[in-house]
């Protein structure tokens, strides 16, 4: 049986049809996951039944990135440290989507503690890109992206600290939406860099993402950074169109590092929007090139602090037969964390340590403001910004693991958005050598609606978001 796959169709199904849809995706996970390694834990948890099921996402199968804690379901964060961890509570996002009627069918693979851009830092092995199993799916939400792209689940949650939703979405040919910082609850979302982390959605289309984000977003008093303001109807925003919108084309995204073929796809996408009635305006963000160095001060600093909680005492991995308490801490952490996580903890410890704090940490925070101010200035004359999501299509497994810096530079176009706290989306914009690439749209603070309107208008005029990776046909109904 091949069910309908658009979210509005899936949630309109009821009774037997809805159950068959869930079964259909479970079957695809059984068949295809061994090739992709997109899931760490398959799950069989239905939302608690409601009296009359008028819930907006009733029966929708969903997968959660394995850093959203799930009560009674292992939550590993892609780490050996949490390989045995079974949380006693649900994350705010999980709770909301449960209440909306979703059925959780799995926890997805990811870079360890969300630190990585290729899924190769996962303690559970790398995820493979359904478009080419010798290539990475991107990261850190690589499992969620590969699962949606291969049609193993219609939608999945993800988190984005420096591009971890948009970059894998681009490399797997799907739509990845990162909302404004503060839009979605971070309660129960295992922390990496708290001033940057934000939860979002990976889906086939802007339409599907809007249906899910509409339920995920909103104030949660248990997260002090969650903003108390009304959630607009993102689904209603889908039909607004781009006519009259001013789109700032970020000139410094089209730099030497960008593959010409990727640039060509992005420019084609922009001309589709122009033909639809948007106005393209050249924009330059002078400090944007500093976003990667700023990020690799601030994110490791925040991570070294957040990951101090893993001590081998209260939960997580514990070393055997420790000599004393210091040995227990040190060995539990060194055995539990992988190489990339340890590198970042050490960098973070360095930039926060006495004598270096001003030169690195404060300096990076000051440049962070310059970067945010560049965005705010640009938004005085445009309604949204656009450019590529990544400089290249998916790279080969192992291609960039030897040199951390090469890997870091892969996020050059996505990181600035997190530093500024803005919403952004990556939508499929075509193929380069048979591999998908993404168009990135960046919005004003809390203006997710313009992004949904623009992405949906683009997808109404193009078919790239319907492309299926060869060998995985049938997942999109």
């Amino acid at each position, binding site marked *: 049986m091949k069910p309908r796959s658009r979210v509005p169709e899936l949630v309109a199904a009821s009774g037997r049809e809805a159950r068959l849809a869930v079964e259909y995706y479970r079957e695809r996970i059984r068949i295809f996951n061994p090739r992709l390694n997109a899931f760490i834990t398959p799950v069989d948890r239905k939302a608690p039944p409601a009296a009359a099921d008028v819930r907006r996402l009733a029966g929708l199968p969903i997968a959660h990135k394995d850093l959203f804690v799930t009560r009674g379901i292992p939550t590993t964060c892609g780490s050996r440290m949490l390989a045995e*961890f*079974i*949380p*006693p509570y649900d994350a705010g996002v999980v709770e909301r989507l449960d209440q909306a009627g979703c059925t959780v069918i799995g926890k997805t693979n990811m870079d360890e503690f969300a630190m990585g851009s290729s899924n190769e830092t996962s303690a559970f092995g790398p995820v493979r890109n359904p478009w080419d199993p010798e290539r990475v799916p991107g990261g850190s939400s690589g499992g969620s992206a590969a699962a949606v792209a291969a049609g193993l689940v219609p939608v999945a949650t993800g988190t984005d600290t420096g591009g971890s939703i948009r970059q894998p979405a681009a490399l797997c040919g799907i739509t990845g939406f990162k909302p404004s*910082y*503060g839009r979605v609850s971070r309660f129960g979302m295992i922390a990496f860099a708290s*001033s940057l982390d934000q939860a979002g959605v990976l889906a086939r289309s802007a339409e599907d993402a809007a249906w899910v984000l509409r339920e995920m977003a909103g104030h949660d*008093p248990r997260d*002090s*950074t969650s*903003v108390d303001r009304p959630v607009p109807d993102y689904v209603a925003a889908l039909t607004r169109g781009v006519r009259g919108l001013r789109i700032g084309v970020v000139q410094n995204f089209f730099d030497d590092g960008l593959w010409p073929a990727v640039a060509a796809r992005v420019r084609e996408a922009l001309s589709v929007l122009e033909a639809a009635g948007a106005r393209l305006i050249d924009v330059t963000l002078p400090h944007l090139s*500093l976003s990667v*160095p*700023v990020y*690799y*001060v601030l994110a490791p600093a925040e991570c070294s602090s957040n990951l101090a909680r893993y001590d*081998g*005492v*209260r*939960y*997580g*991995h*514990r070393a055997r037969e420790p000599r*004393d*308490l210091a*040995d*227990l*801490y*040190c*060995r539990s*952490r*060194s055995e539990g*964390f992988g190489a990339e996580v340890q*590198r970042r*903890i*050490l*960098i*973070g*410890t*360095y930039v926060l*340590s006495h004598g270096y704090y001003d*030169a*690195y940490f*404060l*300096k*990076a*925070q*000051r*440049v*962070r*403001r*310059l970067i*945010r101010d560049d965005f705010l200035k640009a938004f005085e004359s445009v309604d949204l910004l656009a450019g590529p999501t990544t400089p290249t299509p998916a790279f080969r497994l192992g291609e960039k693991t030897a040199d*951390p*810096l090469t890997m*870091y530079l892969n996020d050059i176009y996505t990181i600035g958005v997190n*530093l*500024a*706290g*803005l919403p952004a989306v990556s939508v499929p914009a075509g193929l380069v050598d048979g591999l998908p690439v993404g168009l990135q749209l960046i919005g004003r603070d809390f203006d997710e609606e313009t992004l949904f309107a623009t992405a949906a208008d683009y997808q109404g005029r193009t078919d790239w978001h319907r492309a299926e990776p060869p060998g995985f046909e049938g997942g999109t109904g």
Partner: protein
Amino acid sequence: MLSAEEVKRLSVLARLEARSEDEDRLVRELDRILGFVRQLEATSTGAIEPLVHPLDLVQPLRDDEVREPVDREVIQKSAPDVEDGYYRVPRVIE
């Protein structure tokens, strides 16, 4: 240039075990990353206020109200070693 000594000191601060077998490589990697982020020095930031956080938020206070306590037994199910409701660790005081 970052020294091996400095990396050892950082490992102690971060409560990580410094492993001698891959020490050279680690020192080189960390040094390259720090060299890369040091390019920020060239940007003049004068009196610019550091941006700690993208939102101009004040830390909200919640009402002080009576709530259900968190169940210790449930929480401690995740702990590697527990006795009588306490976490067991190696002896700290001889």
